[in-house]
């Protein structure tokens, strides 16, 4: 296994930053990341160690996670708000906030941002309907509503929401057949099933929807290769599989999944370089370190891939100079892939990265605090 070649300590910087996380990425071939479940409320432990001024990173022989640089990268991304890319991504800034903040939390640096600046901005994205837009002034949509809930969960601030208002907005989007629309314009997709179920679970309002019908719809999107598509008949895709398996996990319905069949399909996503692709005969991409890995973990088949090769692939995608992680080695980095790279390492139990929950996509301590409590 890993050999710890050396370890060193980093002085925690006090970073007073005007943090308006600007997301920056075009969606992969993947269904645009259903805002992965944000981690809720932070790890007290790492906060304490931050306060103490020290944070320990273990480095492994094959290369190391440039945690400090990634933190810096995330914190500086927002400053570049005037270049073309940042403007293009302005409409999904709330997703970006989730990606950036969750990554910081996984690296034990959530304290580097001032929640008194982030939270008011998040709340300004909310509409009268209860839903959230991707940024101030943008229309409400489930995609951003989950991100908002997740960001608040990271800061242990879900209670500032008018929970009934938000959950009613989500519940109204369920259709007669159990499926969910993303917003009032009626686009249907199992991504939205996941988002609705995950959001309502975090808000403890799953009783507002017909869970059995929601599950039935997801199962109707199951394919003959064991995977899931966006609508019935849609081709299996790792991102979509995460959404469906995640929704089934949260509703205690994983018995609908053919674990061996799906597990074989998923483990064959690993290509020679060690990276994972999202569909057969496609290129590997760091973002699948999240979609594929989390799905494999939820169905307990993650041992079917070579974890060390995947760790190496993710580490090879780091920009070791300026921080950030890209889709493939030597490509341009962005916050989306930085999140998925770090989250992937977390699922691979990389030393120094907090554990993330595969279904809610929030740090395990946050999820446990919400559902198991003290």
């Amino acid at each position, binding site marked *: 296994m890993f050999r710890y070649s050396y370890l060193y300590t980093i002085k925690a910087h006090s970073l007073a930053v005007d943090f308006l996380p600007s997301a920056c990425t075009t969606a992969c071939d993947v269904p645009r990341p259903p805002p992965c479940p944000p981690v809720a409320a932070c790890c007290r432990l790492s906060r304490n160690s931050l306060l103490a001024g020290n944070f320990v990173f273990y480095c492994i022989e094959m290369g190391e996670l440039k945690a400090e640089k990634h933190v810096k990268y995330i914190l500086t991304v927002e400053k570049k708000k005037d270049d*073309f890319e940042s403007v293009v991504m302005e409409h999904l800034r709330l997703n970006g906030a989730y990606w950036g903040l969750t990554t910081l939390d996984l690296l034990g640096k959530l304290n580097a941002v001032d929640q008194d600046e982030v939270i008011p901005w998040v709340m300004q994205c909310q509409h009268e309907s209860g839903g959230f837009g991707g940024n101030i002034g943008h229309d409400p949509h489930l995609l951003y509503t989950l991100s908002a809930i997740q960001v608040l969960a990271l800061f242990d601030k879900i209670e500032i929401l008018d929970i009934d208002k938000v959950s009613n907005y989500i519940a109204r989007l369920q259709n007669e057949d159990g499926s969910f629309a993303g917003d009032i*314009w009626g686009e249907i997709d199992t991504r939205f099933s996941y988002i609705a179920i995950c959001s309502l679970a975090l808000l403890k309002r799953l009783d507002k929807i017909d869970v059995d019908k929601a599950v039935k719809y997801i199962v109707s999107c199951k394919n003959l290769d064991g995977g899931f598509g966006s609508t019935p008949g849609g081709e299996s895709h790792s991102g979509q599989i995460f959404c469906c398996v995640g929704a089934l996990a949260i509703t205690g319905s994983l018995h609908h999944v053919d674990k061996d069949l799906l597990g074989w399909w998923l483990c*064959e996503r690993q290509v020679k370089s060690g990276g994972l692709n999202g569909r057969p005969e496609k290129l590997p*991409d760091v973002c699948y370190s999240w979609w594929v890995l989390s799905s494999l973990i939820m169905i307990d088949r993650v041992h079917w891939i070579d974890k060390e090769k995947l760790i190496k692939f993710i580490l090879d995608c780091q920009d070791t100079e300026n921080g950030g992680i890209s889709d493939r080695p030597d490509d341009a980095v962005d916050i989306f892939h930085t999140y998925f790279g770090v989250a992937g390492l977390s699922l691979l139990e990389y030393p120094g990265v907090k554990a993330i929950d595969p279904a809610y996509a929030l740090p395990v301590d946050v999820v446990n605090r919400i559902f198991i409590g003290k």
Partner: protein
Amino acid sequence: MHGRPRRSPTPEENEDSAAKGAKLRALQKQFIEFHHSKTYTKEAIDVSTKLVELNPEYYTAWNYRKLAVEHLLTDQTDSEYIKSVLDEELRVVENALRSNFKSYGAWHHRKWVLNKGHSSADRELLLLKKFQKADARNFHAWNYRRFITALMNIPAEKELNYTTDMINDNFSNYSAWHNRSMLLSLLLNKKVAGFYPKETFLKEEYEFVRNALFTDPDDQSGWFYHLWLLDQTVKVDNLFVSSWPPNGSNICASDPLVLNQYAFPPGSASGFEGFPIILYFNEGVVGVNSSTVTVECEFTSDTNLVWIPVPANRSGYSTTWFTCLNFSMKDMLPSRHYRGKVSIALSEGIVSSSGVCYSRPFHIEFGVFVSSPVPKLREGLETQRIYWSGENFHATELHSEELDFVNRFCQLRTNGSDKLEKNDMNVDIIAEEISYFRELLAEMECKIGKLTLARLLMAHDALSSTSHDTYDQRTLPYKEILELYSDLMKMDPPHIHYYKDEYSLVFLKQELSDKESLLRYCYQYRDSSSPQNRSFASLRLNGLSLSRIGCIERLLWVQMLDLSENELRSIEGLEAMQLLCCLNLSKNKFSSFSSLEPLRQLKSLQVLDISYNEIGAHPIDTRRYLCTSPLSHTIGSDWKKTQQLGLSDVDISTYWDAFSIFKGANLTQLDIVGNPILDEKFKYFLRKLLPTMKWLDNEKSG
């Protein structure tokens, strides 16, 4: 950024990017103003047009356009005008897709326009042809294609031909193979002539996909299609059942001192409150109840039995069904044989999760007797420690009752009286496929060739065993299959554990389906040094490098199971072994308590050894969502309060998974040493949680 090389931009590029950014920002600002003021003038709409063509992912602009269209069409009856408005939308979408044809917003906008009854199938199919030629794997385009064919009622046969054309054009198109499988199952389900029954198309399809596989075995496009065909070929619309007691068995229900007793601790608080009957189906079923299953026993008049699924998940479907007959030893005459019968009539009542009805007559008979004199109930048993050491296990003697049991379980599935004729054709199809893959492997080494051959041989075996009365057990293909998996482990190390798991399942099948080899693992546990002289029907599968367990349908009789020194990570399926009293899982790879979830269902379990595993060593729990928990909403939010069990001084949240597995358990002996989670605090917690426990590791408690 996807596919964009990493490099620092030049100052000119920075400037250029900033200028473009400023321009786009101005446009967005203008748009937001129009949107918020509900302005739908030509000028305002033009701004949104520019915006979506520049950035098709800007979803609010698509919403705005829908509002604008609705505004423009309010009270409109002029069909030319309506057409021109909608045509403009289609034009804008097409332009937007040219700049990004993965834009969710653009594709949805087009669907929205079409749902208004606009455009034509020809026009849309033409557009799709263009896009699918440029990117044959674009799943948005394929989804849109399915939307159009449904909207325009294009027959599935026609779409099937389209997939044929796409595949002939380039077989490396997983999307086309996927769509083909969907269309064929649709045609099959609708029983369309030429596609029903499935045997009419199977042969041709095998040939089609074989061409792809043999052209480039490393290309995955056809892999999953072939597996799907194989699954279709093997799938017999029939359910099988295994039972305890097995047909023809004689059970001594009473004497704990007698060897070969297969019963349960009668009357004991921890065991069954009666005589257990277990039905184990090869698929999860519902509908097992006193009207679908008839039970007649001479020692009880109780016929209104309650059948309980094990485990009860949200669906209600379960492979294992369990009931208990009223049973009182003192009312039974010593040495008399009481007969019992269990039968399942041909009824529509028992249905599997895949919709198959139970359709084979099922009938078992068994005998029950008590020895004379009827001994007293066991007392004080709990205080005796069970030792898993070899000297307590005695080889099963020939002609013993245990041997009889083993025999009866070995005959499972091969005693079908109705020959499934349709199967013969499928057996032939698979045999032919086997010879093709042998040819391929003779020419080249390839992983998919070996894996497919292994699967074909398994399928051939499974089908033959159900369709041939004279199924010859000596021709079992297991040895060859095991060699194939061994080769695969060497050829494809990243997936070694997948092959290992498959290997374990085949290996168990080989070892357990043959009487002689099964007997090598069967023992009688007898601790002669203990005054109680306890005895258990035992199976020792220790030290076999097993990473998975299977063949549970043959193991329903086991009371004591030794799985130590293997590589197990989970015990999925073990919950069916309802007679288990003692279980040794020591020295495996269990990494969390949630991986022991099946233990919740084993109400007779008293002795458990989980020492020297990895519990507590891993931050990521891979069974977290496969067990009952508040995270998966499989228990209510009051799970702690109702079950405090005098644990007020222990923080249950820390050990919630252990709590969930062990609460209500009747363990008398637990070995847990050698797991990172173990410390004094946890030991204290366990003692509180398990009041019946007498032995925790080597320490005697209470």
